[in-house]
């Protein structure tokens, strides 16, 4: 195997404070790039980008078998952001991991940018597929898991879904299908932030009892705090080793997590236009100075004019 990266989660070093600190730092950087991008774009979905930053950081920094020197190696694990509107966070973690230039990640939603409003695989191959229409990324992940297994490729497939997203029937078609085909190489994570576009899930279309639904559809189910990096690491490790079932991790999260005034406020789902003051406050909440935002924006301007 040509890949250098190791699955930290499967080694004793996995849960070291150093690893957790590294992941937390990546998560913070992910959030910062996401906010900078949304501010720079004048549109985009902050709430759902922030809620999944810890999940993305844990995946990329510790779980996915992706080598920055050769990211498209055939043996790489696949990650699909099925809730494609959280693209700013995906670009954020890529930037944090050196898989995308930070300046490109911040130059979000601009004509000609590789950081399209929703992930587009032809612009960023590591997106694995193009998303933005809820439900489809999950099905694509299932197809990949089937295709990899047929070709005896040991890579694993991960898909991150929104809670609102799982109202799509396509997701339950896929859930039934993955269980039927015993896709143990598939791990689904649900960013269970309790909010969707217009309101709380409970008001739009209630999802509970959510774990029961997945269990009844034949999945191995774990429920964790999606902002607890240790819990994420442990759950991903368990998921990778749970027999012949596909595995779902229901990650309880807070929409807007990390930017206090956005937390659990439906209106910050997006697509919103941030004011400079709001962006500054967001950076402050993340523990970053406004100058960091300035630097990021400057980088993005250079891409545009470079």
């Amino acid at each position, binding site marked *: 195997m040509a890949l250098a990266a190791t699955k930290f989660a499967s080694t004793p070093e996995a849960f070291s404070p150093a690893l957790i600190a590294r992941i937390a730092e990546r998560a913070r950087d992910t959030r910062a790039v996401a906010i900078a991008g949304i501010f720079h774009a*004048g549109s*985009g979905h902050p709430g759902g980008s922030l809620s999944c930053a810890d999940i993305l950081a844990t995946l990329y920094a510790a779980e996915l078998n992706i080598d920055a020197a050769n990211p498209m190696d055939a043996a790489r694990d696949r990650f699909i952001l099925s809730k494609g509107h959280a693209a700013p966070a995906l670009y954020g973690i890529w930037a944090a991991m050196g898989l995308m230039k930070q300046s490109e990640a911040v130059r979000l939603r601009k*004509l000609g940018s590789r950081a399209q409003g929703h992930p587009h695989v032809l612009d960023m191959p590591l997106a694995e597929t*193009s998303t933005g229409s809820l439900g489809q990324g999950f099905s694509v992940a299932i197809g990949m898991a089937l295709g990899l297994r047929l070709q005896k490729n040991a890579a694993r497939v991960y898909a991150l879904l929104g809670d609102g997203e799982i109202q799509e029937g396509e997701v339950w078609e896929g859930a039934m299908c993955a269980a039927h085909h015993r896709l143990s190489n598939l791990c689904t994570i649900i960013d269970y932030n309790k909010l969707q*576009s217009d309101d709380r899930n409970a008001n739009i279309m209630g999802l509970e009892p959510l774990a029961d639904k997945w269990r009844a559809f034949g999945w191995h189910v774990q429920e964790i705090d999606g902002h607890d990096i240790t819990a994420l690491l442990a759950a991903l490790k368990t998921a990778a080793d749970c027999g012949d079932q596909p595995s779902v991790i229901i990650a309880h999260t807070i929409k807007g997590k990390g930017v206090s005034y956005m937390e659990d406020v439906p*209106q910050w789902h997006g697509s919103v236009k941030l004011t400079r*003051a*709001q962006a500054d*406050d967001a950076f402050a909440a993340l523990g970053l100075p406004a100058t960091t935002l300035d630097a990021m924006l400057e980088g993005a301007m250079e891409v545009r004019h470079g």
Partner: protein
Amino acid sequence: MANAAPQLIGTSGDSLREAFGKALAAAAQEKTNVVVLDADIAGGTGVHHFRKAHPDRFFQFGIAEQNMMAAAGGMAATGLVPVVTTFAVFCLRAVEQARLSIAYTKRNVKIVASHPGLDVGPDGGSAQSLEDMAAFRAIPGMTVISPADPTEMALATRAVLDFKGPVYMRTGRSPSENVYGPDHRFEIGKGHVLRDGSDVTLIACGVEVARARDAAILLEAEGISARVVNMATIKPIDVALVARCARETGAIVTAEDHNIYGGLGSAVAEALAQTHPCPVEFVGVNDVFGESGEPQELAEHFRLTAPFIAAAARRAMARKRA
């Protein structure tokens, strides 16, 4: 400051979706059998106005467009007039539901789709529907409408509620200029001559109507007299008007924020082939997907703006002389 409410993009201002949402809420005052179906996107489609005015007649289906579309057929069967709303691109995952449970059953359902075409802007190619008019035009008995501006949108909203039968109507996301004054009239199935002319006819729908008008102004400066037709009803197309334009001007340009295949351009080409064949140039998205950008930028990039329509007019005119 920071914890003020977020600015939602375009939910205020004169977008077609806002014009639709307001007109719908107003019309529903007296039309008490109108109900609205939403798939967690009311803020984007304009029906938040209806929800506020008529909460009891607003039905939330969650992010589940197939069930919503077919359920609309069931609601219509009980005597209601359901208005099903989502983004145009998500209507494409319920085409068969619209076909069977609405059109085949002749249900009085209005499918109103926001966010069509490049006008969607920064969300990018995945969200920019370039196929919806083609897909819905092919469904037997489905009327397809794409109004030009907020004024016409309000009139069309009333007209489709008065009309009995399944309708697919496009609104639009971006703030949109009014090409019409308050005395405009809208009739389903009738094109409207926005500006007369004798050398070439520019037939447009939706956001392209204003651009076609601008193209006519550009052409006028060169001494070319371009007629501008707003073909807000794509199906049934106003065959008589299309034929008359061909007869009187001898060359036609179509302009739409849609793939060049299957939409307005096709409908016009079909009408001409059956009546008065003449050269046509098609302005639209050239069988590629869109991308992120501001609507106006994208319109330029994908060659939908007035200068491109004017250039197409010159090409069409050159062919008529050939």
